[in-house]
């Protein structure tokens, strides 16, 4: 990897991180706290929506966010040939 590739790899990582953390923030602090009273006026399956985000939706979103991160970073590592698959890996 030359210097520009290193920079590209790192910038892609930072961009992915920023996007995922924005969703993390919006769902937990946004939907579940700042906007909870407005969202509570919408009721789905008996759940006031703001309450649902605070006790279910945010947690489910967190799991999905990490899944996306794992998937995209594994691919990014492979694209740049820096995947860490253990001592037997030929790329190492």
């Amino acid at each position: 990897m030359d210097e520009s590739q290193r920079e590209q790899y790192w910038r892609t990582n930072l961009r992915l991180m920023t996007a995922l953390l924005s969703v993390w923030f919006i769902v937990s602090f946004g939907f579940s706290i700042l906007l909870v009273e407005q969202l509570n006026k919408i009721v789905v399956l008996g759940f006031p929506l703001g309450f649902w985000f605070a006790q279910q939706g945010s947690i489910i979103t967190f799991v999905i966010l990490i899944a996306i991160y794992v998937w995209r970073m594994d691919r990014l590592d492979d694209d740049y040939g820096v995947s860490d698959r253990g001592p037997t890996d030929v790329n190492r």
Partner: protein
Amino acid sequence: MDPIFLWTLIFVVLTFSLYIYIAYRSRVSDTEGFYVAGHGVPAIANGAAVGADWMSAASFISLAGIVAFSGYGGSVFLMGWTGGYVLLALLLAPYLRKFGKYTVPDFVGDRYSETARLVAAIAAIFVSLTYVAGQMRGVGIVFSRFLGLGIVGGVILGMVVVFFYAVLGGMKGITWTQVAQYSVLIVAYLIPAVAIAFTLSGNPIPQIGFGEIAQELNGVQADLGFAEYTAAFTDPSRNLLNMILITAALMIGTAGLPHVIVRFYTTKTVRDARASAFWALFFIALLYTTAPAIAVFAKSNFIDDVNNVAVDQLPQWVSDWQDAELITINDKNGDGIITYSPGEADDPESANEITPDRDIMVLANPQIAGLPAPVVGLVAAGGLAAALSTASGLMLVISSSVAHDFYYKRLRPDASEDQQLRVARITMGFAILVAGYFGVNPPGFVAQVVAFAFGLAAATFFPVIVLGIFWKRTNAAGATAGMAVGLIFTATYIFATVPADAGALFFGAPRPFDITPEGIGTIGAILNFIVTITVSKMTAPPPQKMMDLIEEVRYPGEAPVTRAH
């Protein structure tokens, strides 16, 4: 013989034998095995181990009860204790694994300075000790209620089992026992939840069925004079500002807790470290999305079972928990009928005549819902699994901080493997004794102490580790100043504002903007960030060798940069 006693005994003997068998199979003979399980734990197994490590007696026994009695306000724990894993997965886990040492102070020490390592080691020991006190207490409660062993006997039995697998197998023994403990605790949590969900809502999936029940509960609570269950910001300590601060403090604190971070050193590769962060939160979410459902079911059943019921016709579970002194009943108006309303049963000003300890909701739940004795026994074994797994993870942090960061890194850098291992095992044994002592003689302020652990972890570790990875310019002076300011500020606020009746060290001073001590770690962390950045900018940049090390940590499979120099 009482069937609940018999089934609890069967499950406890079965699970404890399993843990001891695993411990025997995963003995270790070197420090790498003892501290980080030889960096050889597969991703899914590590995920389950993180789950068990993380989900303590507080998660298993107390969480649903706390949510049941605070409704929407309980969301801070649900979001805070899961959202931290997003920070951990994206900002810390892969980089710390690439860094590949043994402890959290290792990173702080190698990245910054030996002084910083010392501060980090002391904070790690303090955070872990405060945390472990609550765990052994959970063990004691389960034993005294279900096996009549008494708290002392229960705690000693728990200590013996932990001693066996933690001293013999170190991190390796702890990891594989935690995998087993996760399995036990999740089965024990889900079976009664599914059964109760099906009875109450007609839907076996608790996460779906509890919406309708929560709506009914809103009405019931309003009739009894309580705020609606799902309504937001009904309690001043859970107003908008505090909801944000507490949630953030728990998230940042979670990502800064040493016993959770070290688990990511144990995987084989960086790839596995990321994957295990996913598995960890997935396994944790199974319990954390079920807890709010259990909370609603338990609260509805509880009100149904006791409100407007004659004192002499209360169900069996009430008198069982009254015997354990965890339910207070006080028929103040002498009409022979229990009235449930806001306030405390022992407060003459309030009309309320029954106050349950909220910690009993999960343990009492199967009995309240009329589930058979084996389920009650299974839940007891699950509670023990949760408490023991967390306790052992914390003890490993204490042992490695003392044996590795103090003894080896500072006192005796020339100590042999055998000497280091012996010191690690002795400290482990000592940590178990201290934990046992706290289990039998719990400090009167366990709840405040947990707020303390999270606040400190948030205000000391998280900012300097994240900056250390993402901003190469961070230097030793900045990090040391940042940690010191975060630590002192957070500790001072907690000591000053926690009500004086919690203990001699607390003063109950008025709180600016009504900020509760539980949320102050967020401000402490922000201060730490600001101080670290400012001081780093005002002082010389770290040496080139350090910049190269940070560069190397950012690229998972790349050969160490230092080799090229």
